[in-house]
């Protein structure tokens, strides 16, 4: 049967490795794909001395390519130091899977971005980021470009969900153009907070809704 997916991809899709979540992870990330609405969460447990990724888990709200790539990328990352794991590319994941259909690239890139974001999150939380630039409104806006608006399948900046951003004495005030009771308001709020809380010079994040 001429399926678009090979046996390795199907195996990782059917029996994904490293599925689940870690309690109190050392690093974590949430990434959403503007193109198709897929979403992935990644959790890391890192040895504080060796910086080796000792445990890694993922959750996916995505299609077959997304699930399979997340499964393989967690296998590839496990046992590597965060410096080694950071260098893993989409190509590494795709090669390990024996190839993916070209149109599915964006679904699978998401898993790789998720790994990088989780490592970055770890580094920021553990004071490993050097040459720190002071946060600006642009920094904040750029980070919010990675928060998905589930209604549109595009990010919250592109879909004009941000009514206002104010930055004052290490406090971010964010006004989201949505009703507080909206079904997705909590998800968006939580993700926006997650993207911003690791900024080194930010002490507090206040997120409000227009209604």
């Amino acid at each position, binding site marked *: 049967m001429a399926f678009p*997916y090979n046996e390795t991809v199907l195996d990782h*899709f*059917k029996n*994904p490795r490293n*599925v*689940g*979540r870690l309690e109190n992870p050392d690093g974590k990330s*949430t990434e959403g794909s503007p*193109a*198709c*609405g*897929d*979403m*992935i*969460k990644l959790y890391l447990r890192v040895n504080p001395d060796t910086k080796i990724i000792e445990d890694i888990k*993922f*959750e*996916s*709200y*995505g*299609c*077959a*390519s*997304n*699930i399979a790539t997340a499964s393989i990328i967690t296998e590839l990352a496990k046992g590597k130091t965060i410096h080694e794991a950071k260098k893993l590319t989409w190509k590494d994941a795709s090669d390990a899977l024996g190839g993916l259909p070209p*149109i*599915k690239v*964006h*679904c699978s890139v998401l898993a790789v971005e998720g790994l990088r974001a989780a490592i970055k999150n770890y580094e920021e939380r553990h004071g490993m980021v050097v040459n720190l630039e002071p946060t600006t409104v642009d920094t904040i806006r750029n980070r919010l470009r990675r928060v998905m608006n*589930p*209604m*549109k*399948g595009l990010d919250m900046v592109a879909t004009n969900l941000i009514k206002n951003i104010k930055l004052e004495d290490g406090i971010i005030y964010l006004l989201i153009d949505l009703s507080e009771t909206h079904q*997705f308001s*909590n*998800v968006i709020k939580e993700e926006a907070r997650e993207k911003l809380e690791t900024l080194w010079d930010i002490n507090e994040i206040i997120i409000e809704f227009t209604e």
Partner: protein
Amino acid sequence: MEKSIYLDNSAATKLDKRVFDEMKSYYFDNYAVATSDFGYSKGIEAKEALENARSVIAHRLGASSQEFIFTSGSTESSNLAIKGVVKALGDKKGKHIIVSKIEDYPVLHSAKALEKEGFTIDYLDVDEYGLVNTDKLAELITEKTILVSIQHGNQEIGTLQDIVKIGEICRNKNVIFHTDATHTFTRIPIDVKTVPVDIITVSAHTIHGPKGIGGLYIRKGTEIKKITDGGYQEFDYRAGIENIPGAVGFAKAVELSTDDESIRLRDMRDKIIELVLSRIPDVCLNGHPQRRIPQNANITFHYVEGESVTLHMDMYGISVSTGSACFSKSLEASHVIAAIGGNHERAHGSIRLTFGRFNTMAEIYETVDTIEKVVAQLRLISPLGHKEV
């Protein structure tokens, strides 16, 4: 694959053996083209077969034989309906057309193509169930409006429009009304003597007939012109050699598609909706709870993605379809689900199950068991599948 449960009958149906038996002799024994009454006998016989088929199908619509032409399928029918009316009236009356937002691609993309040529198209909104707002339709019609094209039953969510009311509005305002009945023909009765519709698209591929044959009902007196040049076939509306085996097969398929069968399909539809909604948490029905075609159920399973569901179902030998962007070649989520809610997440996990003659109630139970298992498995790995603590 040992087991096979096919639940994508709105995409294509299995050809009924009895249809094929009728068609065969027009491939191997009498393969002549339809000639005039003054031609040779094989051609006259072929012509008779074509006219018999035409009469059977026209009769099912309450129309006269002269009001029904054969085409290569729904896509050609709807293209001819829209572009043919444009050709007849575009320069004479105006350049305004109204279609609904949830039309299937032949209508929607014909409208978009005309928009690029300078036509004004109004894409009529639908409510959360997929029903068009008929008051809004009446407001949109101007003296420049040449055509309203609103489908009878929706291809994805199955919603049935009130074509009597829509037709009355169009008739009162003297505007031609076309409806795409690809997913309703023979499943829901349409009688053109009581329904004020001017042009109807139908197809054989959705009712266990052959692929590559469809038709168009054109009410007598409707202003429409042919859009392909060639011979004078099909009352000079559609040039090209007639597909006589296809026409004969289409007519047989129409005869075999009975009201009893529609009831059987409806029972399967109601059973699957009832079982899924009662057994699986966090699901919602897409489309109207009552006003829907008998062979369609469309359900969103929250927190999971549709392509993942269809792929798992396929491994169990069950064919279903989804409105998820990941499933489509274009990576566009379903425009129909977007129109009924504007919610990407709803399309992401939507699964369409469409039934046909060869499905059984036992298959319905088995499908529900499998989908319950697959959705539970995918929810285990979903970040949204469990309540936040």
